[in-house]
C-alpha cells in the first residue's frame, strides 16, 4: 500500500494543482488547455473497469499522442453532433509515488453531467491511474488512464473525463 510514501510538500502541491487545472479545463470547456496538460508523446485512455480487471485491452477511447488529443478536440467541437452538457469533476484521495522522472499518481474521480432543462446526473465514477513527468513548463501527464466503474454509459461519452 502506498500509505506513508514520502513526497515533498512542493511536489504534492504541484500535483494537486495539475489535477485542479485538469478539472478546470474540462469543466470550463477549455479543451486546448486540457491538451496542454499532456506531453507530446502521451497516452490517454478511458477504460471500463471490467476490461481492466479481466485483462482485456479494449478502451472506450485510446489515444497515443498529443495529436490524437487534438483530433478529439476537433471531433467534439466540429464533427460529433450531440446534446451539449456541462461536466463537473471531483478528484480526490490522491495516492502519490515517486517515479523515475516524476510521479505515479492514482486518485478517485466523479463526473457530474448536466444537460439543459434536466436535473444533474451522476455520469461517471472511476479512478485515475497516471504517470506524471517534470517538464520545464511544470508537471505534465505522460500517461493518464481513466478506469471507470460506470460501465453502462448513459448513452454517449463525448468529452474527455
Amino acid at each position, binding site marked *: 500500500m502506498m500509505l506513508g510514501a514520502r513526497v515533498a510538500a512542493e511536489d504534492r502541491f504541484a500535483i494537486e494543482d495539475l489535477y485542479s487545472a485538469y478539472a478546470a479545463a474540462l469543466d470550463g470547456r477549455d479543451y486546448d488547455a486540457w491538451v496542454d496538460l499532456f506531453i507530446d508523446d502521451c497516452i490517454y485512455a478511458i477504460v*471500463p473497469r471490467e476490461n481492466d480487471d479481466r485483462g482485456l*485491452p*479494449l478502451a472506450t477511447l485510446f489515444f497515443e499522442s498529443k495529436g490524437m488529443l487534438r483530433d478529439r478536440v*476537433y471531433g467534439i467541437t466540429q*464533427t460529433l453532433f*450531440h446534446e451539449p452538457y456541462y461536466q463537473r469533476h471531483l478528484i480526490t484521495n490522491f495516492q502519490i509515488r515517486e517515479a523515475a522522472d516524476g510521479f505515479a499518481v492514482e486518485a478517485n474521480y466523479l463526473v457530474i453531467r448536466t444537460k439543459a432543462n434536466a436535473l444533474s446526473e451522476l455520469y461517471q465514477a472511476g479512478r485515475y491511474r497516471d504517470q506524471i513527468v517534470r517538464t520545464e513548463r511544470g508537471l505534465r501527464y505522460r500517461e493518464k488512464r481513466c478506469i471507470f466503474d460506470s460501465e*453502462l454509459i448513459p*448513452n*454517449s461519452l463525448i468529452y474527455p473525463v
Partner: protein
Amino acid sequence: MIRERVAGRSWDAKGSSRIPYWLYTDPAIFAAELERLFYRGHWGYVGLSAEIPNTGDFKRSAIGERSVIMAREKDGDISVVENRCAHRGVQFCQNNFGTAKTFVCPYHQWSYSLKGDLIGLPFRNGFKQNGRVNGGMPADFDLRQHGLTKLKVEEYNGVVFASFDPDVEPLRDYLGPAIVPWYERVFAGRQLAILGYSRQRIPGNWKLMQENIKDPYHPGLLHTWFVTFGLWRADQQSEMIVDARGRHAVMKSQKNDGGAGAVTAGVTSFKENMKLHDDRVLDVVVEPWWNGPTVTMMTLFPTLVVQQQVNSLSTRHIIPRGPNAFDFVWTHFGFADDDAEMTRRRLRQANLFGPAGYVSADDGEVIAFSQRGFSQHADAETVCELDGTQTGGADHNVTETLIRSMYAYYREVMEL
C-alpha cells in the same frame, strides 16, 4: 380482434414507409413485441463461444427482458437456460461471467445442472428427527417438472444464438441464403479473440437501432469521418442485401479516398480541410478474407448487429429496457491468429466505434432525439421513402428500402 391482441392499435397507412410514432412509445406494443419478436419464432444473440472457453465457464446474457445464462458443459456443448429459479423465482446468477459445476440458488439451495435440470433440493424427502420424518416435498414431486427454462441453442461458427421457442426454425434457415454467405465471411470458423466490451444505455426504442444499421443514407451525412475520409458515402459501390422475409440485412460498401465531390455538395458535415494530427487511427490494412468490401454492417433481427468496418470487428447486442430505452453491448473481437500489429490496429480503429466513437457516439444521440420527437406527437408518422416505397435489396446506398423491408415483416408478424 387481432388488433385487440396487439394493444388495440391500428396502423392505417398502407405499406411500410410511414411508421406511426406510437409504435416506438406504446408499452402495450412493446409487450406484444417481447412475445412475438423476442420470445417466439426468433433467434436471439447470446454471446461468442470464445467468451466461455473452458468447461463450466458461464456468461450471463439476455434475450428481450429475460436474463439468461450460457454455459460450457463437460461435453463441450453450450447450454442456455433462463436465470430464474423454479422454486420461487429468484434470479440466482448475479455475475456476468464465472465458472461453476452447478447452479445453486441461494435462497433454499435448489441446485441445477448447467443444462438446467433440477439435481436436488434440501430436505426433498424431509428431515428425520426423533424417529419421524418432518416435511419434504410431496411424494409425486417430479424433479423433471421443475428444472430451469431450457432454451434451444445453436452455435454457428463461434456465435451462440438461443430461443425460448422450441419450434423455431433452424438458425441457417432463419438467416436465409442471402445472409449466410456474408455471415460466414466474418464468421468462417476461425477462432475468435475477445478484445473487450463497451456498454451503453440508449434512451430510445430498440427498433431505432435496427433502423440505424439498415439506413445507408445517414452515414455519409451524420458522420463527418465517413464522408470526409471516404469510409462510407453515396459515391461508392454499395449493395443492400436483405433476406427473403425482409428482417435481416447486410449493408456492404467499398471505401474510397473521400475528399470533395458531387456527393459532398452542401453537406455541412463534410470538412474539406480536415486533417488528422495523428492518422494511425485510420491505418487500414486490407485483410485477405474481405474479398473486396471494406465494410459489411449486418443486422440480424431483432437482437444483433455484426460490424466489420475496415479492421474493426464487433458484435452489438440489443437488449430492450421497456419501450423507451435499450442497452447496447459491444463485444469487440479479432482472430486468435492476429499478430500484435493487427491487434493494435483493431484497437486503434475502435476509437471510431462504441459510446464515444467518432462515427457511432452520435448515432446514440440522434436515436435519443428521435424518441423525444415521438413522445411529443403520438399520432404523427415517420417518412421512409428515399428510393420509393418498395421493399427488398438495392445496388446502391441512396435508399431506405431496408427499413421498409423490416417493417413489412414486422407488420406481418405483429399483425398490425
